[in-house]
């Protein structure tokens, strides 16, 4: 019998340069250090039962990442959180842990959209950005080529706005379904903003069962 838990965590500092695959390993090792009974798959090469929601591109920060893991024993949430917190590497911190139903669908099939914040590392002309956002939003299709495949970026942009606080930042809500993922750097490229002059932070991942409560109109 396995027990399923969901961790919501932040990914900061040097950990932003750890890829999705390596984050998987990071969790496995954290569980081993915390001496928690992580469940493994059966077979010749047993793998730890860890599922991640929509992968976060290398270099992005996040206030809101989700991972599901399966334990061989049931544990109370606060001791689970304490054990993990003591074993996590610098830059990863837990926001919350919940126990969830084993029968819920796999996280990666369950993700609908991601909200990102884009902070500028250098001064940009807000007026110009507003104009290019306007141009982009008013298009019906935005065909781009990524890794040799062409796709339409426009329907993947659910929301895009500039927040005129000091300092200014962009807020974007992009589709992140299996096979239909909008990438913030592709949007930035359409806006003629070099990615290396920005800091991109994921603020939220929206899951399918949350959509009903949302006014996303999906």
């Amino acid at each position, binding site marked *: 019998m396995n027990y399923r838990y969901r961790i919501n965590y932040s990914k900061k*500092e*040097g*950990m932003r*340069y*750890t*890829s999705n*695959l*390596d984050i998987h*390993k*990071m969790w*496995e*090792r*954290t*569980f*081993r*250090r915390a*001496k928690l009974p992580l469940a*493994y798959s059966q077979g*010749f*090469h*047993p793998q*730890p039962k860890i599922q991640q929601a929509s992968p976060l591109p*290398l*270099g992005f920060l996040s206030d809101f990442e989700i991972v599901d893991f399966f334990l061989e024993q049931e544990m109370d949430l606060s001791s689970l959180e304490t054990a993990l917190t003591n*074993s996590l*590497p*610098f*830059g990863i911190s837990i926001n919350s842990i919940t126990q969830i139903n084993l029968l819920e669908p796999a996280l990666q099939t369950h993700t609908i959209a991601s909200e990102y914040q884009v902070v500028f*590392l250098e001064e940009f002309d807000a007026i110009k950005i507003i104009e290019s956002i306007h141009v982009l939003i008013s298009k019906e299709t935005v065909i781009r080529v990524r890794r040799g495949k062409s796709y339409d970026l426009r329907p993947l942009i659910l929301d895009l706005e500039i927040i005129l606080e000091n300092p200014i930042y962009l807020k974007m809500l992009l589709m992140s379904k299996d096979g239909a993922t909008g990438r913030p750097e592709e949007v930035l490229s359409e806006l003629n903003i070099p*990615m*290396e*002059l920005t*800091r991109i932070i994921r603020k939220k991942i929206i899951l399918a069962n949350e959509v009903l409560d949302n006014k996303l109109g999906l």
Partner: protein
Amino acid sequence: MNQEKSLLNQLERILPLVEKPGRYVGGEYNSVVKNWDEVSTKIALVFPDIYDIGLSNLGLQILYENINQRGDCLAERAYSPWQDMEDLLRKNEIPLYSLETKTPLRDFDILGFTLPYETLYTNTLNLLNLSQIPIRSEKRGKEFPLIVAGGHATYNPEPMAPFIDAFLIGEGEEILLEVIDAYKEWKKEGLSKSELLLKISSIDGVYVPSLYDPQYNSDGTFLAVKTKNKNVPKKVTKRIMGKLPYAPTRFIVPSIGVVHNRIAVEIMRGCTRGCRFCHAGMINRPIRERTVQEIIHSIETGLENTGFEEVALLSLSSSDYTNVLELVEEISNKFSGKNLTISLPSLRIDSFSVDLMEKLKGSRQGGFTLAPEAASERMRKIINKPISEEMLLTTAFEIFKRGWHTLKLYFMIGHPSETLEDVAEIAALCKKVLAVGVKAIGRRAKVHAGVSTFVPKPHTPFQWVACDQQESIRQKQNLLREELKGPGLKFNWTDPKETIMEAWLSRGDRRLAEVIETAWKNGAKFDAWQDFKNYDIWMQAFREANLDPDFYVHRERSIDEVFPWDHIYPGVKKTYLKTEYLNSLSLRLRGDCREQCYACGITQTFNHLRKEDPGIVWKCPNISQPRSKNELSIPN
């Protein structure tokens, strides 16, 4: 602090542009970040190859833990940036920095370079230059860090002599701490850099090359070194630990994939087999073992501290570990069913090794590797690695039968007396092994032959021997490539140009430094990486320095030649090496020196240490009688 802030800002802009930016940010689990201002002596440990290779280096890990245990010191790390990062560092004028506090290396007190192999020399110069530190020792005043280096390659320090302030010869556990203490005193006294160098030159095992003057004969061969100061030791004897200290257990856990993601536990140091080509086997004497309890404890603590899924038990010859069966059984009892991979490399060729590996076989399974090194009877006698073909075939059959599909076999070619017939026997042997595999498990059986090329290393019985000519190496490799075609066979080799580069650097004298510097200036680096084609740059550098590369590698040395590394003493006497060289010429085998002492000199050199720790840790036989030529008594 401000400096750090602005460096972090700069890094945030350049890291998205490089491959694997996680190499350059630190923050790994078990890395140690101390408060810079609260510590008096700051050491940066530098591995001059990329992070992916350097991170798991055991020597560096030992020193990192040792130094950071002290309240008055800190140790941070730096590695070679890959070309993309180097370009951006140079373009933005960012000096090379440490991973922990992102401090420029030039602001440290001491930089300690690990030089396990010679092909890191150009990278070492490159790292100094990237740190905005002059590469030549004489150009560095006391405003620059003290540059020290250690590791296997430094047993011949001469080619790097003008660049390194001091070499720490031998095992680094104590000597580096002693250098730190001397440095602290010196700093308090406010003396000059030359005072510092003189001060540390009195520490056992420290070689300060600027205090020694090499002299040459008119034919270019080495005459002698002259000490420039009468207080400086004429010969620098390596340092060893009488008893192996506790193994490190707080391994740095990388946040990105690297070459070895594992806990490494040294089960013993040294080797008693006496293979005549083996540098490690000669310089790491005497043989010292850890107890089974100590090893188990290190693994348990290491796993708790890291969460790693792999454990490597390291030694030069695992089967020779006295209680190897007990060790393996204990490990299998304690750790099976925990989804761990446990590797035990360097096993002897016998079916006992297969038993050992089978006990370690958990749910995850590694490969099986054996190193026959030579295939013909004659070559085995020359290199002193006797193996019976029958035993190899029986062992191979067991390996395949018990579930391994691939057997890797390591061989060495390139000894000058080797003939094409000897090489053909390697191919024939691989085919016989494959046939045995097919008999055991059918067409799934595979044999991978890894064939390296011999480099006559300093401080080995083959230091008098010449390197094979490139043409001859190619001919031998072509023969193997032709023969080792077909289903189930795979053949790996080393480019002869790479071998010859390694040979120059291993066997060079101090004049070679100019060649290294010129080669680096003209773009040579990452010489250990086959995809960097530096050979022509090196040839050009030899021409510019007016030196003949063949002089260093293709010349058989006369038996009484003085070598540029003779004043570095690994505790193994040159007369012993000479006897072994003559034995190889007359095809005479010598056995395991646990059984019979051949008086290599190691026990005499370190008798004082042995006496401190009497009992079981040293596996050299006790020599109870006063030494006379042929009277070696073996106890028990």
